[in-house]
């Protein structure tokens, strides 16, 4: 029978000297697995409680409007250069790659449609989300983590302020507002980048490129007569991504332990967890939206 031993500094984690595996150690492993599972479920519960409280505090007083505006600047305005750059170059690469493929079918005139559909439905939200997760999520975790280890969170508590109301709610709201806004900008930068490549490299007139872009936007119809369905699909995702990034950052930041090293750990965990969650959730949202809009 094969056994996996977890080596640790605790003596009970070391493998036994003899080849006879003591039967009493098996429940120990199960117990540890059980404890680990409980901890994870508890963490998940805490995450959702944090999210619920953060949203709930948005509808009650006191509301920290100045903090919200400051966070909108920090999360949104300051992320603008990075989002513009990534969107622009992704659009250019998309046009370049698709021109090679479409040329074989003599369909290079559809580059605009392809770039627009890819950017608005998928790449725009995901790229903006990943960029914001890297820049803003890590920033939130580092900021709140530093506040935790330097007792500033405790200070807020003792000064009669709920840290979730003061620190988490403005960040979550700012992300809910600004990540969709950044996504729209990212979409536009990507489509614009695509237009430069298609006119300069592929030789498609700019007017034709933009006409195919608008054809694609109108292709799936409109909601409420004026709002293209593609836009709705492209804006639901960043709204959810904004919530994920800000809440993951706040959650890991507020739970930071272990001094400055702990701040580093919280930051890394935030970027990794938020990025993975974002991609997983993106798949499920896409499935749901395709089913809803197809019907």
């Amino acid at each position, binding site marked *: 029978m094969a056994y996996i031993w977890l080596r640790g500094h605790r003596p009970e984690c070391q493998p036994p000297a003899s080849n006879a595996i003591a039967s009493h150690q098996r429940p120990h492993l199960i117990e540890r697995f059980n404890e680990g599972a409980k901890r994870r479920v508890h963490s998940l519960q805490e995450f959702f409680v944090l999210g619920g409280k953060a949203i709930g505090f948005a509808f009650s007083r006191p509301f920290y409007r100045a903090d919200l505006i400051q966070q909108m600047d920090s999360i949104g305005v300051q992320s603008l250069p990075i989002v513009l750059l990534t969107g622009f170059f992704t659009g250019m690469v998309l046009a370049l790659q698709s021109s090679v493929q479409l040329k074989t079918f003599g369909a290079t005139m559809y580059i605009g449609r392809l770039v627009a559909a890819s950017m608005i439905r998928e790449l725009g939200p995901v790229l903006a989300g990943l960029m914001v997760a890297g820049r803003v999520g890590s920033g939130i975790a580092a900021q709140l983590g530093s506040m935790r280890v330097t*007792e*500033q969170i405790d200070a807020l*508590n003792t000064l009669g302020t709920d840290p979730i109301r003061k620190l988490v709610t403005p960040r979550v709201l700012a992300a809910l507002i600004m990540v969709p806004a950044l996504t729209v900008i990212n979409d536009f930068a990507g489509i614009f980048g695509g237009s430069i490549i298609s006119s300069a490299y592929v030789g498609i007139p700019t007017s034709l490129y933009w006409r195919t872009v608008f054809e694609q936007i109108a292709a799936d119809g409109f909601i409420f007569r004026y709002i293209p369905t593609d836009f709705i699909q492209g804006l639901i995702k960043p709204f959810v991504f904004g919530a994920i990034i800000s809440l993951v950052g706040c959650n890991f930041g507020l739970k930071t332990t272990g001094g400055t090293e702990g701040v580093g750990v919280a930051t890394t965990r935030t970027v990794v967890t938020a990025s993975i969650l974002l991609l997983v959730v993106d798949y499920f949202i896409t499935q749901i939206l395709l089913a809803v809009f197809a019907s």
Partner: protein
Amino acid sequence: MTDNPEGRRGSDDRRQAPTDGPVAPNTPIRRPSDDLRVRAAIRNELATDRPIEPGELPALVNERTAENVIALDHVSLAFDEPILSDVSFTALAGETIVVAGESGTGKSTILKLLLRLLVPDKGTVFIDDEEITELNFPDALKVRQKMGMVFQGAALFDSMTVFENIAYPLREHTTLDEDEIEARVREKLSFVDLDPDRVMEQLPSDLSGGMRKRVGVARGMANNPKIMLYDEPTSGLDPLTTATITHLIIKLQRELAVTSVVVTHDIRSAFRMASKIAVLAEKRIVFFGTPEEMSASDDKYLRDFLGGF
């Protein structure tokens, strides 16, 4: 000081500070020396061993008439292992209670219990005759407004200026207008011997450790709280700054009659500022009494704890 407990309220010729003026007979004169180490030693003595004036000692509290402001009643707390076990003590209005003990004995936990950042497993905590153990979160926030807390590292908000830090509790919990807030901030900064015009617009990162601590005290007392809590207020400070902070705590008690709980293992400062000292060991309070009673105690642990002091 252990040799002469009464000495803390009188003068001790051996600890007379050097002076340029006339010197009392029989007082050894210390002359300034160019040797830096000697000068540093003199500065240390000035800070810690100079004779204590009556105005630098905590005011005496009338135990018959004063009311209980803080009470811990048979409080026990455990996480993975016991932190506190059956801890009880009371603080009368205007008293300064020093909680002393070795590291890791749960001293700071007592402050968290008083602030209701932690809830005891057993026992009750009273603040101002109100039991706080069963309070919900919003009510606990209200109780915390009666208290000012000074953290070990000052815990000033990095992103705010000194002015904004001190004004924070005023903006949160009072209806004072900006002029009144500025006047209050100036008053508190002056109380802690900081020049308001010089420091108000500075960020905490621009201040020295001692100044940060004093701003922390100013922020803690901004709302004129009834109770002040101090977590290791003198740790990591040089002797001069330690003396300054100690005198500040005494000044607060004498001039504003604030009830204080000070967690420290700086026993020298503890003897200067305490109305009563609680010594924690093995999760319990092993001694609770006046500094004089502590000095006079024959208990072996207390003698060892006081060491050479």
